[in-house]
């Protein structure tokens, strides 16, 4: 029996070898033992009309790539032109050049082609050439993080461009970039950046492991990615700071934070972060420190106004009329006398209207959006007062709250805060000032339990790190900001030149 099996196996092997020989003789590049075959690749990528397959029969070379994923100049310079210059016997020599990377794994080969590389097949061997260069948006100014003073370039959707913007600013060998792939179907490239010797490696490891552990079919933006690696996914507060500005990203890296960018997203995120970091802007550092400090403090006041102004109006006009001074009381009562609803309904109605206007303004093209904002705001506000739907004072409160919310530099944080406002208004409508205090208490308790990449979200207040206050609540003079944020747990706390 064993002898019979051995004979059959030998016949099959010989037949296979004979077939391979015939295929090679006919000029068809076929698979050597352990190598991926052209047929296998073409089978996998069949019905992909955008796939380009070029054959060079005289040198027995096949070239496979996606035309829109590669840079045409690089394709000609690095692949086509050299191939056209050689004879068949010189091809193996050419393929020894460093740009041709031999690949023995068919999965890696297909992923490489999908990632914008060209696959070269010759005598059963496969090689990948990195000529990635899809069409991308050029580097432009950020629309969500505009500054008066300072650099105006912003990230775009191409991770290579974004890496270049970072490398241009950090010319240090300590800047390290780790590459990961996210999404079962999309296989999106994610780059994790950190500065060796400044970033805490535990943070790098944590971020790497969390991104690596993502199990989903596709990730389409960095804002989606951070929700998949949040410490507390059910919290309303963002736990990673996102930015479109390379200078901001660089400052985070130099401060000891970990930064991650994703192909296809114009934003990067930095971690760990704290609640207070969302109130700082790149602008603060480009102005005189006193101006920067004043602006930053204004933002914290704006936070208070956004959260509490309308709620305070509701509390006072529902339960605490005695708080209004006599000379204001007449105006107040006159204004309220025509409104048939309790203040809480009135406030919720107007706040909802403002949110509708904001959302409509954001969705429409810029020019129409502005018109909607102005006309809608004025017309609805005026009409609501005249129709007795709302009091003048409430319109002022609602408008002030809305304007104040836009002072907060982070759009994500601003949106979160606006939503919290509704809860506070409802509580103020039920329990007046006590309700307001209850709302703030719930918020503080919730915040106290939050963490970003494992470190407290309320740093530097809790844990109390007074040395960090000089670059948190104020923007101190640069000589006073002598240390990196303690939240990053950097091994290199004092800002100094790295000797290398």
């Amino acid at each position, binding site marked *: 029996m064993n002898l019979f099996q051995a004979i059959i196996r030998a016949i099959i092997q010989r037949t296979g070898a004979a077939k391979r020989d015939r295929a090679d003789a006919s000029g068809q590049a076929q698979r050597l033992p352990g190598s991926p075959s052209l047929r296998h690749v073409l089978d996998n990528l069949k019905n992909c009309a955008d796939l380009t397959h070029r054959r060079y029969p005289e040198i027995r070379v096949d070239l496979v790539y996606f035309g829109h994923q590669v840079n045409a100049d690089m394709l000609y310079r690095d692949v086509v032109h050299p191939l056209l210059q050689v004879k068949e016997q010189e091809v193996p020599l050419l393929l020894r050049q460093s740009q041709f990377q031999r690949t023995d794994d068919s999965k890696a080969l297909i992923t490489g082609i999908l990632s914008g590389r060209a696959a070269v097949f010759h005598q059963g061997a496969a090689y990948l050439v990195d000529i990635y260069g899809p069409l991308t948006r050029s580097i432009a100014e950020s629309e969500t993080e505009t500054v008066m003073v300072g650099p105006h370039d912003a990230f775009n959707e191409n991770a290579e461009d974004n890496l270049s913007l970072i490398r241009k600013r950090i010319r240090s060998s300590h800047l390290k970039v780790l590459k990961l792939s996210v999404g079962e179907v999309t296989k999106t490239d994610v780059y994790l950046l950190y500065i060796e010797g400044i970033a805490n490696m535990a943070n790098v490891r944590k971020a790497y492991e969390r991104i690596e552990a993502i199990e989903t079919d596709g990730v389409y933006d960095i804002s989606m990615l951070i929700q998949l690696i949040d410490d507390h996914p059910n919290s309303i507060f963002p736990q990673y700071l996102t930015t479109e500005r390379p200078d901001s990203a660089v400052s985070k890296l130099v401060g000891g934070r970990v930064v991650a960018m994703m192909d296809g997203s114009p934003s990067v995120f930095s971690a760990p972060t704290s609640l207070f970091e969302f109130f700082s802007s790149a602008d603060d550092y480009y102005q005189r420190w006193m101006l920067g400090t004043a602006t930053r403090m204004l933002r914290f006041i704006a936070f208070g106004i956004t959260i509490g102004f309308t709620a305070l109006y509701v509390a006072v006009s529902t339960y605490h009329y005695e708080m209004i001074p006599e000379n204001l009381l007449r105006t107040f009562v006159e204004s309220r006398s025509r409104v048939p609803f309790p203040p809480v309904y009135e406030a919720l109605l107007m706040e909802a209207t403002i949110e509708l206007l904001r959302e409509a303004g954001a969705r429409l093209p810029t020019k129409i959006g502005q018109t909607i904002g102005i006309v809608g705001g004025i017309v609805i506000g005026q009409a609501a007062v005249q129709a007795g739907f709302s009091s003048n004072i409430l319109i002022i409160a609602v408008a002030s709250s809305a304007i104040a919310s836009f002072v907060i530099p982070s759009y994500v944080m601003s949106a979160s805060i606006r939503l919290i406002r509704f809860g506070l208004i409802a509580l103020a409508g039920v329990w007046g*000032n006590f309700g307001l205090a209850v709302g703030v208490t719930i918020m*503080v308790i919730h915040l106290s339990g939050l963490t970003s990449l494992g470190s407290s979200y309320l740093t530097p207040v*809790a844990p109390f790190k007074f040395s960090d206050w000089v670059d948190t609540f104020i923007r101190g003079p640069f000589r006073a900001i002598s240390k990196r944020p303690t939240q990053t747990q950097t091994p290199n706390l004092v800002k100094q030149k790295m000797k290398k």
Partner: protein
Amino acid sequence: MREKLAHIHVVIMIYMVEAGLVLFRFPQMEAEYFGTNGWVSLLICFAAAALNILLLLPVHKMAQGRSIFDIMEQSVPRLLLLPFYLVIAAVWGMTASLASKEYVHILKLVSFPTVTPALFALAIGSLAYYLYGKGIYNIAKAAMIFFFLSAWMTLLLGYFISEFQFARMTPFLFQGSHQMFVGFLNIFPAYLGFELVMLMIPYADGKTKLVRAAFLSTFFAAVLYLIVGIVCFGVFSLQQLKLVPFPVLDLLADIRFPFMERIENVFYGFFLFSNIVTSTVYYWAASQFVGRISLRLNSKLAGALIIAVCTCVSLIPDTLMETEAWVRNVGYAGIGVAIGLPVVVTGFLLLQKGKGRYGRDQK
């Protein structure tokens, strides 16, 4: 590795526990029991509190990171300690719930005369449970934030500089005083809270310096009380102070801005912050004992149980006066615990130390 409590967190947390509602009441008590310049009694109470804190020192030194439960149960079977645990859990649990109940009664007085206090008490109980569920480290963090949200209100006392008259202070000390010891017993609980650090030993390390933290927080509370006391005695006459039940609230009511007045309505709301910290930390302490009574109870369940039971019991006193009477009685029991517990634990530690030495001598 479990996070350890930082020194400053303990200082602020205990300060927030101490500087609670008593702030509104004690100037009246000082005037009533100690007469002229009654604020000086605060110094006497502080000295007593400082001595009491000294009792914590041997516990902290000799415990070497062990919890007081481990220390006690090493010498006495747990079964015999259960009644003792139950009493302390009841005293601290009721201290927490009655602090909330008193806050609710005063809130009713200030803003909501027609609302049933039970609803507010339940709301505060729920908030306390929410904070309790975050664990002691996060409670300390929340206390930090609450401290910064409420500490600035002390600056409002500067508003009364123009109304302050030294003539009201008089050169006489404690004229018109009566039952000073009762007064002392009523004012001393204003400093209670420091004794809770005994339960924090397993959550602390060498850097936390628990006893120093307890002393500092009590010292800061004393400074606050002194400022409030002196301002009250300088703004109100002695007779006024004796009659006004909550002089600090009346002071706040006097502050007027061009766009707002009667701001005690808002500021009293802010006192919820310190009240929540007081209640939660006491509930946490009580739950430690409850968890020790029944080892099957997990931390969250123990907390829920103590908060639910104590909140329900606190609903029994109907009026503010009744609640104050309960607060006074629980305060006396609290003094007993603050003095008795460290003494008992120190006794056990000395006993264990003695036995250890005895054992070595035998060898």
